[in-house]
Structures are given as C-alpha cells and as structure tokens.
C-alpha cells in the first residue's frame, strides 16, 4: 500500500497503482470463478509481463490456475523469447505456442508483400483458441492505446469466428462482469483496460519486475523505414536503399520485428524511462507501430477479424 498525495483525499483512498492493481486482481479472480478454461496471452512484452505478475499475486500462495498462449510471428526478438521461456520455467507454467511460420510453411497463410506479420497472427490465434477449447482469453490491451480500444469492454464477447462487434457489446456497470457465452464463443478479458503506459511503467518500478533488456537504452544496428528505426535482421531488412547504422535506442513496445520500431533513447534505468514517457509527445503506438499507421481504422478492422 502506498500513501497518496492529495490533501483532500479520504484516509482510505487508495493510490492510483493500488486501485488499478486491485481492479485487475478482481478481474482475474472473476474469470477463475466463472470460466472452465482460461488462458493468458503471453508474448514477453511488458503488458503481458504485468498481467502475469498480477495473476501470480491474485492466486498466491496457490499456482496461477491458467496456462499461457503465445502466437509467435517467427520474427520475434530473441531476447524476448529467451525471457518468455525463462519466466515460464521459473513459475512452473504451461505454455502453448502457435507459430505463424508453420502456417506459412504449409500454405495456410501467405507472406504479405510488405513483410509484416502482425495481421497474420489472427488465424493461428483463433485456431489455438479453438483447439485449446479456451473460453476466456486474457489480453494485455489497454484503452489508452488506441481509439477503437477506448470503447472495448473488460469482458469482450467474441462469436465463433472470434469477431468483435462494437455495436453488440454488453453494457458493463459497477464491477459486474457478464461472462455468459454459448458453446464455441469465447470472451476476451482485458485486466489492464484502465491502465496507461505510464501506469504500467510505474507499477513495474514499484514491484521490481524484470523486463527483457530491449526495453532499456542500448546500442543496436538499425535502419529507417516509414519514419521508424527497425532492427536489421533475417526477417527482411534492410532492403536496398536502406542503410544500417548503430544508434542508441530502446523499444517502447515489443512485437513483430518487421513492424515494431525503436525510439532514440538514453533511458538506461526504469526511472529514466518513466520520465521519458511522461515527457513524450507521441503515443506508444504512434511512435512504434507501423501496422496502426495503415488507416484510421486499422486497429478496429483487425479487432473485428478476431485480433487481440
């Protein structure tokens, strides 16, 4: 528990981090109480790491009653995959990996001309949910990330095609979440709905949570594409005309290497990251995600198709 600053607050007011933590833990426990086969989407990115940390706290001293699912685009950062596997082993968790590469290899999916694999994750994700007969799928999505996500529910019902219909969302009142669903349908659950990027980082600092090192400033061979710094590598960059240079950068978000950009940064410590984010004039997706720059409704369209 943390004391809070505002002089007029009741002696019982929680700090904003305690309030957000309590809300997220409540959501995890609601799902544990009402669903048969929940699963946590775990990519090794900061939001999914915070989700797992909250789940561990919610059920301690018992084990987390969920398994983990990762959709691997085949273009993930090796540092992140190493972190993922180490974390899974440390906590004795079960991890299921769905691989986009398998789908490309056997022809079920085709590589896009731009080489971006983010949109290709939807089919392996929906197949994995179906094969695992998962009825609740935790995602690390936050409402502050993007304007379509600002209208997402904490419990988001998906039909048998995984599709999101914003007009048919259930009103969500008080803290009464309605998880009723028919066979074949599932519910996406977003425990970090009300967190901002800054909240996530402050919570990571407060709880002393370890992150993959690429979230902190380091030197890296990068090249410029669409106004972002991309890591040079086997996935397909740089193309001719793009020059590689060594820069001091860090990643603000972690996803597919082909569409996740790094930002120039000298934030080596978590406190430096917090100050950098507070002063930033760009949202994390605006700064680092090529796929959201495609159109005004890029995220909405992907969500309708069953994306995270």
């Amino acid at each position: 528990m943390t004391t809070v600053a505002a002089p007029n607050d009741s002696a019982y007011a929680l700090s904003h981090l305690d309030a957000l933590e309590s809300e997220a833990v409540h959501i995890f426990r609601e799902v544990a109480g009402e669903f048969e086969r929940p699963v946590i989407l775990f990519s090794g990115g900061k939001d999914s790491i915070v989700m797992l940390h909250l789940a561990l706290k919610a059920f301690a001293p018992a084990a987390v009653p969920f398994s983990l699912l990762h959709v691997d685009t085949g273009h993930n950062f090796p540092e992140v995959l190493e972190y993922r596997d180490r974390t899974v082993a440390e906590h004795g968790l079960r991890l299921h990996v769905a691989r986009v590469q398998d789908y490309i290899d056997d022809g079920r999916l085709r590589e896009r001309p731009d080489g971006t694999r983010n949109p290709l994750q939807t089919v392996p994700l929906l197949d994995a949910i179906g094969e695992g007969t998962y009825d609740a799928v935790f995602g690390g999505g936050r409402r502050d990330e993007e304007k379509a996500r600002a209208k997402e529910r904490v419990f988001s019902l998906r039909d048998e095609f995984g599709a999101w219909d914003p007009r048919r969302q259930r009103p969500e009142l008080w803290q009464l979440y309605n998880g009723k669903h028919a066979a074949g349908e599932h519910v996406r659950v977003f425990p970090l709905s009300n967190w901002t990027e800054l909240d996530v980082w402050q919570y990571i600092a407060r709880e002393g949570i370890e992150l993959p090192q690429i979230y902190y400033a380091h030197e890296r061979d990068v090249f410029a594409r669409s106004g972002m710094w991309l890591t040079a590598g086997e996935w397909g960059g740089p193309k001719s005309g793009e020059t590689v240079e060594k820069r001091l950068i860090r990643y603000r978000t972690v996803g597919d290497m082909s569409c996740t950009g790094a930002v120039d940064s000298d934030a080596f410590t978590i406190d430096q990251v917090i100050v950098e984010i507070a002063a930033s004039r760009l949202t994390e997706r605006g700064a680092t995600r090529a796929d959201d720059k495609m159109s005004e409704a890029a995220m909405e369209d992907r969500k309708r198709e069953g994306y995270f």
Partner: protein
Amino acid sequence: MTTISDVTSAEQIAATSQLRFATAGSVDDGKSTLVGRLLHDSKSVLTDQLEAVEHASRRRGQEAPDLALLTDGLRAEREQGITIDVAYRYFATPRRRFILADTPGHVQYTRNMVTGASTAELAVVLVDARNGVVEQTRRHAAVAALLRVPHVVLAVNKMDLVEYAEPVFAAIAEEFTAYAASLGVPDITTIPISALAGDNVVTPSANMDWYGGPTVLEHLETVQVGTDLTDAPARFPVQYVIRPQTTEHPDYRGYAGRIASGILRVGDEVTVLPSGATSTITGIDALGEPVDVAWAPQSVTVLLADDLDISRGDLIAPTASAPATTQDVEATVCHLHERPLKVGSRVLLKHATRTVKAIVKALPYRINLTAGLAHESGPAQLDVNDIGAVVLRTAEPLPLDAYADSRLTGSFLLIDPADGTTLTAGMAGEAFAEPAAAGASAVEKEQEGWDF
C-alpha cells in the same frame, strides 16, 4: 499549471490518487470542446493523436481540428458523426490520475450515461448559459442522483456568449443546485466556464473576476476521493477459494475477493451469507502482505478460524451489521436492451459474485426523468433506456443491501438466460435519496433530441 510532461524525476509522479468521473451533455452544450480542452490543456493529447484528428478533419472539409474525433473511435461513429458508445479517456496531472467516461449525446443512449455513472465518483453536467437549466439538464441530474454519484459539477458553458454576466450564472446555478439537492445529490459545485475560450476550464478566467471558486480541473484535482468508510457496513463477496494443497501450504484455505464496502479487521466476528454460519477473521492477505486491517476497494484474501463450507457467491459480513437475505427484491432499474422487460420474464440475476434465477413479478411504475419525475403506474413493459421500478422473486435468498447504503452490494444485473445478453441494471430500494412526490400519471412522450 504544471503538467505531467514537465516533471524531471520519477518521484514527482510517484503516487497520486485516482478519480473516475463522467461527463454528460450534448455536442451543442460544448461537451466535446470541454473534454478536448481538458485533455489538450493538460497536455494529454499527444502530437500523433492531434495530427490524426487534423488529418481526418481536413478530409471531411473542416478547417479547424474537430476534437470530437478524438473520442469517436469507431468507423460508424466517424461516418455518421455520432457517438455510439461510452469512450474511456485517461489523463493525468502531477496531483491526480483521471479516468473519464465520456458518454454520448442522444436520448436513446441513457444506458450509456447510466453505465458511465455507475463507476463514477463525480459527474460533470453541462448547460449552455444562454438556455439555462432545460429538461435534458434535469435528466442528467436525475441519472447522477439515481446512480448515487457523490459529487456533481454543473459547468455553465458559453459564458462568453452572455457577456460573462454574473446574474446569468447565479440564476442557473441556484436553480440547478435546488433541483439536484431535491434529488438527494450530496455535493453540488457550479462553475461558470467558456470551453471554447478556455475560461475556468484549466486556467482561471480573466473575464469573470466575480467568480472566486476553482476551475474545472482544479476542482477535479482537489475533490475528495473515497469516502469515510468508518460508518459503511463491511461487505466481502467471495470470488474464489484459494487452496494450494502443497507441502508448503497443506492447510491454507483463503477466501479471495474485493472488499465491496467498509473495513475488515483481523478479529472481526463474521457471518457467512446466505448460510448464516459464523466465524472469526484470523488473517488478511493483502496481495502477499499480511495486514490487520483492509478496506474497500482492496482485493484481499481472508482467512477464518473455522473450516466452513464457503464458496464463490457467498458474502462475508460482520455479524453485527450483516444484511438480511431476501428472495423478494424491490428495485429501481434502467433497462438496457432492445428486448423489453415484462411481467413474467424469466431472467438471471447477477448480484456481487452470485448469479441466481429470478422472475419479474411486477412492474409498479415507470419514471419520466424530465417531467418532474412523473410516475406512470403499471407500464406494460420496460423498453430500452426506461427507468422504472421492478419487483422480482429470486430462486435463492440474496444478501442484498439498499443501493443507497452500498453501491456494489446494492446493485445487480438482469441477464437473458437464453443467450447471456445483459438486459437490465438494477439498484435495490428507492430511486432517490428524497423521492420526489409522484406527479401526474400521464408521461409526456420523450422528445426527440433530448440528451444522452
């Protein structure tokens, strides 16, 4: 004003409190402009978001950036120029974090304001200074009062269009304060503003020397968050039973939940409802940290002295203040779905962590939120966005509080058992703190264009 982007060390933004609030008002009242200015002047709209809005505004042939596009996130909303759904917005100052439920401005979306108000500690109601308190203002005040939002702010907007005249503001403020107080709203603040010109939104107005109160943002930053819990009854709905059954914790049996109201202490004599079994709290785990006392809205795990048969759906409460259980529920409801609610409807009722079967026994009246809270007796059904009274019979007894005493253990949802659709939001007990006398039974037709 200091904004959060001005800070130079992590400590300066370490721990603040959080305020959840809702806004009500139509585009015509300047709600989007107010929200846009709060976000913009607190530097919460970032460059890429502003560029996206400017770009979209230009493509629509508008010269100035339309700040409404910041909150209208869905394709259909942008194409039709309407807001379909509650949008949640986040902004921060060094003093506090804000979660804003921004609710749209059409009469058919009363459900959205009800949804936004259900979790709000404060509601901002907007009026146009030229029009004063109109029927939609009374409707907004009534929803805030119905949902027991503790703090209500009336922002009298467009003061620039009435020459910043104090008498105009004073008359509107007096009329609104009297009305909201009659509905039982405990704390009412009135602020004269111009959202367009920026008067009294974030920075104090140079045009209204006669006003000595806070700006909207100052008020949001300083209004009391949380209530004095000492008199509130303690309520602990059990979400989940934690039983590790490991060699390290062979006998650990903890009841996990989020305290819905009041304070729990180690040593409290408690009753488990609906069974009525009693025990004593021997330990409270506050997410890994053993504590002697915990309070709403903390998520904790409670340990009891006795091995009782307790499972999800049970409610733990101090024996001295345990609620009565009942199978006969009288409540005020807001109907949320196009499928109407009728006498005889078979539904599921979700209360705290328990879901039981229920049947609608009676629909005593429907309330017109604008026409002096007129009650229409015995409506044939409740339609979407209707507010009314309902009598239910449940299959099992429920430890239901009056909503006036506890928002979280006095509220419930009605769910269609056929497909899980959320039909109705319910609040046990009387609608308003001081119910207005039933007026004329004839309910005026809801007029087109009323707000929410």
